[in-house]
């Protein structure tokens, strides 16, 4: 009985507390930089596409909404097309976790409504941005051992020259 009266009083005091509501369209909420919103494909610091078409993101995606096709150009792999169906994406961020090259990243933008469902299918042109996203210095081909034009084996950062397995000297 008394506890009911106390409850009444505490509830009454809430009348004088500020509202916690963020009145969204008038007042933008603060979203953390790591908020999981619209997905982008980033480029490395040299301005090349980071994505190497490894398909890991497509495999990791629990709702299978990523589809892509590999193509090759001067020893590098690129996606020929890269398609994300945002009407199925659940913004779990697994694709970002899976990506070995930091290519695919989620951004704090969530305002993607469309009147036509088809418009929610984003192609590579829609996804690819010109910046590096959250990892400004990372460049996959500079640190990987893969030989590409202009960089042979053993020339990547933190990489020792390859061992000549036929030589007898230690």
């Amino acid at each position, binding site marked *: 009985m008394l506890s*009911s009266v106390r*409850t*009444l009083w*505490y*509830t*009454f005091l*809430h*009348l004088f*507390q*500020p*509202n*916690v*509501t963020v*009145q969204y369209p008038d007042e933008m909420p603060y979203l953390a930089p790591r908020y999981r919103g619209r997905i982008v494909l980033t480029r490395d610091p040299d301005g090349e596409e980071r994505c190497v078409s490894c398909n890991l993101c497509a495999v990791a995606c629990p709702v299978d909404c990523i589809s892509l096709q590999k193509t090759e150009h001067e020893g590098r792999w690129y996606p020929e097309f890269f398609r994300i169906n945002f009407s199925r994406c659940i913004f779990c961020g697994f694709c970002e976790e899976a990506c070995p090259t930091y290519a695919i990243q989620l951004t704090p933008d969530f305002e993607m409504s469309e009147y036509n469902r088809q418009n929610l299918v984003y192609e590579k042109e829609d996804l690819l941005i010109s910046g590096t996203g959250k990892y400004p210095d990372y460049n996959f081909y500079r640190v990987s051992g893969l030989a590409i034009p202009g960089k042979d084996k053993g020339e990547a950062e933190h990489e020792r020259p390859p061992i000549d397995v036929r030589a007898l000297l230690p």
Partner: protein
Amino acid sequence: MSVPHEILAGLLNIVLGLAFLLVVAALLTWVERRLLGFFQDRPGPNRVGPFGILQVAADGIKLLFKQDWIPPFADAGVFVLAPAIAMVTVMLAMAIIPATPAIGIIGNLNIGVLFFLAMSGLGVYSVVLAGWSSNNKFSLLGGMRAAAQMVSYEVFMGLALLGVVMLAGSFNLTDIVHGQRHMWYVVPQFLGCIIFFLGGIAETHRLPFDLPEGESELGAGFHTEYSGMKFGMFFVGEYIGIMLVSAMTTVLFLGGWYGPILPPFMWFGIKTGLLVCFFILLRAALPRPRYDQFMAFGWKLLLPLTLLNILVTGALMLGLPAST
């Protein structure tokens, strides 16, 4: 052919009074939602019109344009009748409230208190018939609970009133208010006031005593099958019921229109309004008791207390004749 002036004036009074009631009841839905919002640290509906006040209009239009659906398995006649009863009884009961000696429809009725009790007794039918005619087990359960709850709480409500009637020596609400010129009856009849208010909450089946509706267990209880304006009528009835209980409490215990400085009708409005806000606070704060707890609370605690109240009041009135 000429109609006597008194009849015309009376009709006008009734129509205006009822229209005013309906408008205030509609506005109350908005007040309630805003206030509930503030109690819960959020703004409530504030988009439509200034402060969201046009939300009322939007809701009304929405309800009017909803399909007026009568389920094929329902008993159509009774199904339609039930919400009408809900509204008519509370509005009739509202007619006897004297806001001031001048404002009010039949504030001077010499059986005012009895009429109020009779009307709130009739109000039970709306809920019971709605539950029965819907032909749905949740509705029926709600209707049964409503019958038990309202019939038993009506007892305490009536008995709690008796103290006031004894003090004032009249069933006439205007006389009862006149009797409070020097002291509000809430002072000598504090227990009676609390019990009357509790009974009033149970009568209007508002939270925390909304067992007939009990969203979390019965869907929506007796009005599960209702939609559109019939549902709206239940709600208008409920809100007028809130006003009715608040106004009755004001008239019976809080000195009606008496108060310093401000004009009488404002005092009446302020007191009633604060009580209505208290109803909303109750809704925001308290959980619903279990059904058996609720009935036990009524019969085992409130009934003896009410009887004791009457006994002590009567004994004191006999013992200290000078005070009356």
